[in-house]
């Protein structure tokens, strides 16, 4: 069963709280790196909530939050440059896949991602015992020297598929959610199958506020955004 998973991030609802970041870290076994490593720009979180400042009318400075997971581009720049196919397009789910045991760490994909969502395992990140008891058994704990990035929680997609398979039914819309979308308090992150015209994301795709990051690059991201609105008046 082929699917076209997509994520819609409503910037009008995103409050910037960072629950998605923590949920992702908990779900995907991403390590914490500590202050000095963070200072070098080596945070390992797969989704980041970027706070931009903008000067707006009345000389007001406003903050705007851009939650940035992997865009899962349909024409992903990272895929073509990997010499060993460690990252490639998963045709079953239309997501941009990353296979850790094939990766040799050229970091070319990281360079070629205009959204800079790929992170590299600079070290073997040790989890102090017994913090490692929390590690999610559904996916690999990555070792030194490989790239990693948001997978749209492929292990949760798989769990959803397996549950549906066992119950002999198709996957329902909203049944499969990545950890970030599951936890987002205001519900700013939506996830679903674009091939299903009735799904919530398919409907949201028709929203006139829809845009994609760096659209002029032609990467055709599967993660799309809905513009932040501003109420009328003062």
């Amino acid at each position: 069963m082929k699917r076209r998973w997509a994520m819609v991030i409503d910037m009008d609802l995103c409050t910037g709280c960072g629950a998605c970041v923590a949920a992702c870290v908990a779900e995907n076994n991403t390590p914490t790196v500590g202050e000095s490593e963070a200072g070098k720009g080596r945070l390992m979180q797969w989704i980041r909530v970027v706070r931009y400042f903008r000067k707006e009318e009345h000389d007001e400075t406003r903050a705007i939050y851009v939650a940035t997971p992997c865009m899962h581009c349909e024409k992903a720049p990272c895929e073509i440059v990997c010499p060993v196919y460690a990252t490639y397009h998963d045709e079953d789910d239309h997501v941009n896949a990353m296979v850790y045991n094939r990766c040799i760490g050229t970091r070319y994909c990281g360079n070629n991602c205009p959204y800079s969502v790929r992170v590299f395992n600079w070290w073997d990140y040790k989890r102090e015992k017994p913090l490692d008891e929390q590690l999610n058994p559904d996916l690999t704990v990555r070792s030194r020297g490989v790239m990693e990035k948001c997978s749209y929680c492929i292990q949760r997609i798989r769990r959803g598929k397996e549950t549906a398979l066992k119950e002999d039914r198709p996957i329902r819309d909203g049944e499969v959610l990545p950890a970030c979308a599951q936890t987002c308090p205001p519900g700013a992150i939506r996830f679903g199958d674009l091939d299903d015209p009735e799904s919530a994301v398919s409907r949201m795709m028709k929203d006139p506020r829809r845009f994609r990051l760096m659209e002029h690059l032609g990467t055709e991201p599967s993660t799309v955004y809905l513009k932040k609105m501003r109420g009328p008046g003062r």
Partner: protein
Amino acid sequence: MTRNAIASLLALVALALALAVLFPTHSAAAPPEQPIRYSHKVHVTDYKLDCRFCHVYAAKSASAGIPSLAKCMMCHRTIAAERPEIRKLAQYWKEKKPIPWVRVTELQEYTYFPHFRMVSYGKVPCLTCHPGIDRDDIAVQRQEFGMGWCLTCHRGRGVSIDCWTCHI
């Protein structure tokens, strides 16, 4: 030695190396020292027990699972209770201690192998991946699970050979 001899020797070595890379050997390792000399042959070949009678999770879960002590005792309370190996079993049961079986079948690391998909949906016979285990007195692994071996089967059955099917 003539030049030709050297050349043909080199060619042979190269061929052997290439073959070794292409077709890894399938030799079975020596049977491990198990806490109880459990025989698959007796249970499967002689008494015609279904694999899933003991490995209950194979049909519904990723791991096939090793039967619990209670499962063994279901039959062995009465059947062959006086044999020395069964006495050992009974001793474990008496002490309520789990049996520390030695792992026989090793799957490659970083691989997801959902038994239930193969067993319940793929209808792959158990012996495809565990050849000869039904005739083993002490189980050994006869099939190394190289990726090429998996792929050949996947290709033949027309199921997904996407990397993420098995590696996430």
